[in-house]
């Protein structure tokens, strides 16, 4: 029966081409607009590190010290801590895993200086690569003993290893970074989170996650003059140079991330953190009431507006547009079906049930929906291309993929069926006798 109805639908589609093209085009434009907006929104939603970031929390507190530069822009405390505070929190070890980190940008080369590249990476205190679930291709991460003895070791990613040494397996080789030479103890698979949630202050304007090409223990890095991208919040008599400087002794520049499982552990750590910050405030180190609190990864991204509000506004607009297109198509379909009352009447009189008539018309609208989807495909591609040309931060998320194609066809089929319900219902409700008379 399905095949027969499909053939009928195809035949009917060929009958009134101007009407059909109007229907299909309207549907295609609506579906394409919606799909383009949804593609961007889905790329920019969900977990920044699937399976891992759901358990990650960042500590934030007002850690201004009395001598700090008075930058009063923050009504809500940021996440930057001094190295001493970061170390204290990590060393306490109250969470399942914990590490401090800061974004860095360094010229990394092989010691003879023949090859080098400027790459982003993270300076870390604690088992950061492990906590972030960074996959190791070769070697290992640093040991606590190496960290405390300030051993000059580094993890680089496979791309950088290829570029510098022409091989993935660069374990045991040396790289030049800052003023020192660092021994490669591990090679990681190229790693970037889906969205930027680590050190967002130093990554303003990048919505998609930064590709971090090296991980280096923080104290060994500072020893070699390797510093964070910017110095963060510094005291008034701190060094004037703040760009890629390792003179960060008087600055708040690291953020502490924790892996916590379950609400009880989070609440427990929240209490601990509050107590720690309050103790510093009471001791006169923190100038203001600390307002210490934990943010989960997505909460932190929301608080820092990593994903612009415009993205959600776009989805709502596109959704409303699709709704309008659907109402439009429903109206046209109702008209199209009513024109064929006579055919329906004869079928009904010959014994077709209402359900069969309903199914036949729904199959026809589903087919129109699918044709609309096929036309929407180049339109969506075109729409995403236009967004990519825009100077907006989320432009990079406008990427066309196979998933989008599948989603597009599903959406247009669903739209075709939904808009068909009302007209199909109306046509199958008419009593057969009356329809024959009218004919």
């Amino acid at each position, binding site marked *: 029966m399905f095949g027969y109805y499909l053939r009928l639908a195809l035949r009917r589609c060929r009958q009134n081409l101007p*009407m059909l093209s*109007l229907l299909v085009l*309207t549907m295609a*434009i*609506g579906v394409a*607009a919606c799909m383009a907006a949804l593609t961007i929104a889905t790329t920019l939603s969900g977990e920044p590190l699937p399976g891992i970031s759901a358990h990650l929390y960042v500590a934030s507190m007002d850690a201004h010290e*009395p*001598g700090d*530069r*008075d*930058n*009063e*822009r923050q009504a809500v405390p940021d996440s930057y801590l001094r190295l001493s505070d970061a170390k204290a929190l990590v060393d306490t070890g109250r969470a399942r895993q914990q590490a401090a980190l800061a974004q860095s940008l360094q010229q990394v080369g092989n010691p003879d200086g023949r090859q080098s590249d400027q790459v982003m990476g993270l300076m870390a205190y604690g088992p950061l690569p492990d906590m972030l679930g960074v996959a190791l291709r070769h070697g290992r991460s640093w040991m606590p003993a190496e960290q405390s003895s300030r051993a000059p070791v580094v993890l680089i990613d496979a791309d950088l290893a290829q570029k510098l040494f022409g091989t993935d397996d660069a374990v045991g080789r040396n790289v030049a970074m800052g003023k020192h030479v660092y021994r490669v103890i591990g090679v990681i698979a190229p790693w970037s989170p889906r969205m930027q949630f680590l050190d967002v202050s130093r990554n303003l304007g990048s919505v998609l996650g930064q590709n971090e090409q090296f991980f280096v223990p923080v104290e060994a890095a500072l020893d070699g003059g390797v510093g964070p991208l*910017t110095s963060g919040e510094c005291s*008034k*008599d701190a*060094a*004037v*140079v*703040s*760009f*890629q400087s390792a*003179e960060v002794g008087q600055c708040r520049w690291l953020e502490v991330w924790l892996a916590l499982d379950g609400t009880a552990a989070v609440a427990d750590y929240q209490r601990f953190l509050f107590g720690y910050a309050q103790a510093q405030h009471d001791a006169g180190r923190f100038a203001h009431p600390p307002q210490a609190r934990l943010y989960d990864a997505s909460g932190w991204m929301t608080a820092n507006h990593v994903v*612009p*509000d*415009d993205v959600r*506004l*776009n989805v709502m*607009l*596109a959704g*409303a*547009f699709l*709704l*309008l*297109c659907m*109402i*439009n198509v*429903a*109206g*046209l379909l*109702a*008209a*199209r079906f*009513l*024109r064929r009352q006579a055919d329906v009447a004869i079928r009904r009189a010959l014994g077709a049930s209402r359900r069969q008539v309903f199914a036949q018309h729904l199959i026809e609208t589903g087919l129109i929906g699918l044709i609309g989807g096929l036309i929407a495909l180049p339109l969506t591609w075109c729409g995403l291309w236009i967004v990519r040309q*825009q*100077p*907006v*931060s989320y432009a990079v998320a406008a990427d066309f993929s196979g998933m989008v194609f599948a989603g597009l066809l599903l959406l247009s089929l669903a739209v075709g069926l939904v808009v068909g319900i*009302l*007209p199909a219902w*109306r046509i199958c409700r008419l009593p057969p006798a009356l329809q024959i008379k009218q004919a």
Partner: protein
Amino acid sequence: MTVRPIVSALRKHKITAWLVILEIALTCAIVCNAVFLISQRLQAMAMPSGIAEQELLAIDVANLREEPDAKARVQEDLAALRAVPGVRQVSLAGLVPLAGSEFNTEVKLDPAQKTASLNAAMYTGENLLATLGTRLVAGRELQPEEFRYADEVSKAFAGGDAQEQGVPHTLVITQAMAEQLWPGQNPLGRQIYFRSVPIRVVGVVAHLARGSNLALGGDYSLVLPIRELVKEGNSFLIRTAPQDRARVMQAALAALKARNPHRVILASRNWEQIRAEFFQNDRAMAGLLVGICVALLLVTALGIFGLASFWVAQRRRTIGVRRALGATRGDILHYFQTENFLLASAGIVLGMVFAYGINLFLMHRYELPRLPLAYLPVGAALLWGIGQLAVLAPALRAAAVPPVVATRSV
């Protein structure tokens, strides 16, 4: 033209009639709100900066090494820039209008005040106002002897001593800020407080836009007599003739590089680029909204056209009968036009309610202001117009149906 026969005819097509009404209502609601959003963005983009927009160049510099005697080096840098042919004014500024970074300060009228009266952008830099080209509307400029170095000011503030030499005692504010702090009064000679330090207003400029977060009050800015040092976040500002900008920029970059090779140029832009970059998101969004509006109106027009065409085809015989009974072509034309007008009116009334609802939601969600009532009649007129345009072709076709159709069987 009586309305009643039209209404009873529409009753026969309840579903299609309602769909048209709903479609017009939705379009009306979205277009009203979208146009309002566009106007908001355009308004933001048109904000006055108060500076010589076409004459300014900004160069952001960071030193890779700490320099001995940084203060003298800054003066030498500035002198080197001044020596570039075509340069009219130079300054090392702590903040550049709309350049995207922020340096804000809470302003209090009384040191004991719990919450600040407002939050203002803090501009610093020697010769800054002359370089920016702000317009002084009252009082005087900041005098050379009032200037202090930024590091000394920080130390003095940390010391908390109000009489200390290191603290500046005068400032210039914008008209908008003066009006907010002392409505209708003369701001000259009045004091505002930084911590417990009183600072006297000596001058008022017409406008000076903030560095970024315009939501805090785009035109709340103050200028302190503070000399800056070369560091990240500070920019060399150069004023020159609009036609000389490209040449002066090249020469200035070369001069800065020649003075100190251990220096990174983080950015070098003319101020029109800075402004364009600052508003690029707004421009992109406004463009997108315009596109959506056009698409909505187009789809609605097509929908009305399609349905009207169908109705005309369906009623061909009826039209013929009416024509045979004496109705003129004008009568038939007017029939369809009135029908469309009625549907559009119903849609518009419903659309006003929707528009108001969407606006409430946006106000709640995005802190937008209330939709001005003036948008509603404009939106209504637009939709009536579009409806009439879309129905014109089918209505003319209906009017062209000859009376002889009545005598033929279908």
